[in-house]
């Protein structure tokens, strides 16, 4: 015993120290580049001076009398970027040739000069072209013959939309649990989730699905990885040290990654746009703050992406990743912008500036044509809310009208599909907690008021532009609105501080289908088909009772899935339907026919499942019974030993040694009641005259 426990002190263990030296025949086959590529890149280079030379073209050609003046001007412009050690003005027949050579003290200064002075306009005729001297060499050496790039072998990842072909139309979702240690993909089933894939340390922080559900992105210190296909094989890797945020283009062609590390002046790497299919880096951008992620907003078809910087809106186009029409839009004071999810229309707003009113502008891209401008007054803040199809835009305008205290909110509803884009206004005096459009309809929901008097209002935007209040529920415990992705149904949730109150609403007739609670719920996630909804308590926000619950859209609880330190659940999005609107209409018309088939199928699987469950339990019981029988047999065999140990007394059954029992009488003090006689007498004395003598005698009997 002593030996096994005190293994550490065993002298043998101390003597043997492992040898760290390589065996004699060891050949180092690891490239330095592979081992410490990131450090090698920063290795100082020997500067031979050539790197510090720039060539400036389009310099005015002057004679000797004006050369001094030219030199002064050039010096003034170019010494901004560093110390010029030599300058050379080639001459032919007394006049300069029109290009000059400048040498800086360091290659970085030369680079700076190229970056900033290239395209410098000296005057109307002379625009400088500045290049590195070494670049000339580089570009001269390019072979004239076209070398066909080597053909990359085609990697077959199988059917990337395998999950859509599920015969039971199950949707998938990703779950991160055990505080991020484990990630799993489940197929959703009303009975219980079916594990598709489960891996330890699949991601270091969290995961993201691409907009159409093709890829799952995982985060790592070195970059991100995309997974997909039937078995979730790795599809692509993007090396971006310290990546913390990503964003997919809606078309799934590009992915934008952000890392707070690794940004250098000459090589912008804070934001990188990658081509998903080739894995190539398309372009890098600088970024000072990631506070308003995504910094680049994509148009619905992925053709354009835009970024806002103070007073400018830069729109880039794909696949060139260059600025649209080579210039940004100058919009003084721009506060926020947003793409329409249905068309290439951009909406942005600028606040009031002295006498100029605040303005909301809708601009067609790429024509840059303003299709609607709306002026607003006394504006404090604006929020842009697009309906998912881009049919409507709601601009939530917080105003402080003249002569009043406090903020009034206007909902300016833009009807995008009509000529001239008419605008209607709904005014609300109460503070607004949440606003949400019905994803594919013309209704919107608003939570307004002050806790505990929070009201939920539902509005309908009619064809004639009239906005009608359909229903208002008062005194709701809610701070968030979650519409079903198919519209009509929604969950009003009071997350976190409101203890996880849930109300399931059908907005077609505005009824509360169910009121429930998932205590301390922090998230609500609809499945992409709108059949199920999941509420969850994430370990990231609350440390106990981490679980996700599955509900039907009507608010019937189907499953409670407790997962140790559950963190996050994300449904796998579905690509848009391939059916036309007519086909969908037809299906809706024939719904009764289909539902019959499905109901039958459900019943079948249900009876099968319950039979399976019964069988399983039977098997479990049988297993246990068999084990007990074996154990009891051994127990019986040991009876003699037991008898011996207890001096021949059989104690196997409580009454097996009943003959040895001695009768024992135990007396218990059960109860004692003390009734004070005086009190008893006192009451009858009062009643003396009223009570007939017989009753009086009765009282005497008691005492």
């Amino acid at each position, binding site marked *: 015993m002593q030996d096994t426990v005190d293994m550490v002190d065993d002298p043998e263990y101390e003597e043997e120290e492992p040898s760290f030296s390589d065996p004699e025949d060891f050949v180092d086959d690891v490239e330095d580049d592979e081992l410490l590529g990131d450090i090698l890149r920063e290795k100082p280079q020997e500067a031979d001076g050539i790197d510090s030379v720039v060539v400036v073209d389009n310099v005015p050609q002057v004679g000797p009398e004006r050369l001094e003046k030219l030199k002064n001007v050039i010096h003034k412009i170019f010494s901004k970027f560093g110390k010029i050690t030599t300058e050379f003005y080639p001459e032919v027949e007394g006049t300069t040739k029109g290009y000059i050579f400048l040498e800086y003290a360091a290659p970085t200064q030369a680079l700076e000069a190229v970056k900033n002075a290239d395209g410098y306009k000296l005057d109307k005729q002379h625009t400088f072209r500045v290049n590195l001297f070494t670049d000339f060499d580089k570009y001269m050496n390019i072979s004239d013959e076209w070398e066909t790039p080597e053909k990359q072998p085609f990697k077959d990842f199988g059917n990337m939309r395998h999950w859509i072909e599920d015969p039971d139309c199950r949707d998938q979702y990703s779950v991160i649990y055990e505080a991020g240690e484990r990630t799993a993909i489940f197929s959703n089933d009303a009975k219980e989730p079916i594990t598709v894939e489960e891996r330890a340390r699949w991601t270091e922080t969290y995961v993201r699905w691409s907009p159409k559900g093709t890829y799952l992105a995982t985060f790592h210190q070195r970059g991100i990885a995309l997974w997909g296909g039937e078995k979730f094989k790795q599809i692509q890797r993007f090396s971006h040290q310290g990546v913390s945020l990503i964003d997919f283009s809606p078309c799934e062609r590009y992915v934008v990654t952000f890392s707070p590390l690794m940004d250098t002046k000459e090589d912008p790497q804070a934001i990188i746009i990658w081509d998903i299919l080739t894995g190539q880096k398309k372009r890098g951008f600088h970024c000072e703050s990631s506070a308003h992620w995504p910094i680049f907003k994509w148009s619905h078809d992925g053709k354009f992406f835009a970024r806002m910087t103070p007073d400018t809106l830069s729109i880039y186009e794909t696949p060139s990743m260059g600025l649209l029409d080579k210039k940004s839009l100058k919009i003084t004071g721009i506060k926020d912008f947003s793409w329409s999810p249905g068309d290439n229309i951009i909406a942005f707003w600028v606040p009031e500036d002295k006498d100029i009113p605040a303005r909301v502008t809708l601009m067609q891209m790429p024509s840059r044509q303003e299709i609607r401008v709306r002026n607003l007054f006394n504006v404090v803040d604006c929020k842009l809310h697009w309906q998912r199809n881009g049919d409507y835009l709601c601009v939530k305008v917080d105003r402080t009208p003249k002569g009043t205290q406090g903020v009034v909110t206007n909902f300016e509803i833009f009807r995008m599909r009509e000529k001239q884009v008419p605008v209607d206004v709904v005014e609300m005096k109460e503070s607004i907690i949440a606003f949400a459009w019905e994803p594919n309809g013309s209704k919107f929901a608003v939570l307004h008021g002050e806790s505990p008097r929070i009201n939920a209002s539902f509005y309908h935007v009619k064809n004639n532009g009239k906005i009608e209040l359909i229903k208002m529920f008062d005194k709701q415990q809610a701070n968030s609105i979650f519409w079903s992705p198919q519209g009509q149904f929604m969950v009003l949730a009071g997350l976190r501080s409101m203890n996880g109150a849930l109300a399931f609403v059908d907005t077609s007739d505005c009824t509360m289908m169910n009121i429930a609670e998932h205590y301390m719920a922090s998230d609500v996630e609809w499945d992409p088909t709108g059949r199920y909804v999941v509420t969850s308590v994430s370990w990231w926000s609350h440390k*106990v009772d981490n679980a996700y619950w599955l509900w039907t859209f009507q608010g019937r609880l189907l499953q409670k899935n*407790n997962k140790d330190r559950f963190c996050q659940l994300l449904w796998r999005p579905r690509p848009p339907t391939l059916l036309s609107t007519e086909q969908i209409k037809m299906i809706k018309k024939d719904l009764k026919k289909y539902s019959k088939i499905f109901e039958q199928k459900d019943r079948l699987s249900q009876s099968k499942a319950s039979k399976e469950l019964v069988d399983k339990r039977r098997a479990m019981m049988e297993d246990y019974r068999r084990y007990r029988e074996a*154990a009891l047999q*051994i127990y019986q065999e040991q009876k003699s030993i037991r008898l011996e140990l207890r001096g021949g007394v059989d*104690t*196997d059954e*409580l009454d097996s040694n009943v003959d040895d029992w001695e009768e024992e009488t*135990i007396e*218990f003090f059960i109860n004692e009641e003390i009734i004070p006689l005086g009190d008893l007498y006192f009451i009858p004395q009062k009643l003396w005259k009223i009570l007939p003598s017989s009753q009086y005698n009765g009282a005497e009997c008691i005492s």
Partner: protein
Amino acid sequence: MKPILLQGHERSITQIKYNREGDLLFSVAKDTVTNVWYSVNGERLGTYNGHTGAVWCVDCDWDTKNVLTGSADNSCRLWDCETGKQLALLNTNSAVRTCGFDFSGNIIMFSTDKQMGYQCYLNFFDLRDPQQIDDNQPYLSVPCSDHKITSAVWGPLGEFVIAGHENGEINQFSAKSGEVLKKAKEHSRQINDIQPSVDLTIFISASKDNTAKLFDSTSLDHIKTFKTERPVNSAAISPIMDHVVMGGGQEAMEVTTTSTRIGKFEARYAKMWQFASLLNPTASTNITQSSLEEGITNSAFTTSSPHLSSFKFSCKGWVPVIEFNLFTSHRLLQNKGREVRRGL
């Protein structure tokens, strides 16, 4: 089922135990007193006075002759059950965490805490040899340097002790050589309680890792797992039904800062064969669930009456009187704190 309330301790109860017949119930608490009660009506029979620190454990031998208690006052004491006389005082270097009589009642074991620079020891005394007691010299002392023993019971036939450790390990220590006969590492966190079945062939372990597990006593084979959402403080196997009972809740340190709602203090019955198989741990069927205001620290089944089980509750905050409930099938009277000698 009407519970009887027993009031006789002023601080948290640490362990309760029935004697073999189930007519007596022993309870120990942090208030240094050991109480013995009639289980039939909850009347207090008497007390064993002498300990000067919190009493962590208690056991009674098979013929209800001797009682063994272990305490944080660095001593393990042997009492005459009937008269309450202290028969032996075994001093240790650190607190005594677990104690027990073997099947024959001749050999006792107790384990000490790893504290004040002393490591955890598992000590064995043979009561038939008075010299061992007089010299305070165990015939076998097993050191456990890595992880201290948090719960321990004797295996069948007194051949070995089943000990649960701080790290969730369960070991069988031979009572003859001190060797580790078998090891099981099924739990990931501290074992809070180990209780055997009536015939000692199986036992259930309650762990901080939110599960209780059923093991075979001899082979240490894992049979079933019972999952809950909270740390399990105590678990017991019903002597006559295929049931186990589990009690638990938030850790005592967190009790006062969380509402009872979050804490989930409840005793939970689970049908043994139905819950747990490793294949399908989610198929839990609770026969009954009772929500209790305070945390359960220990529980016990009697061996006799089918309906008699009992829990005890730790105190929440500073409640001066600690109570525990006896759930019985009979409607019985309630009696508070009367000392009665066991009638002859």
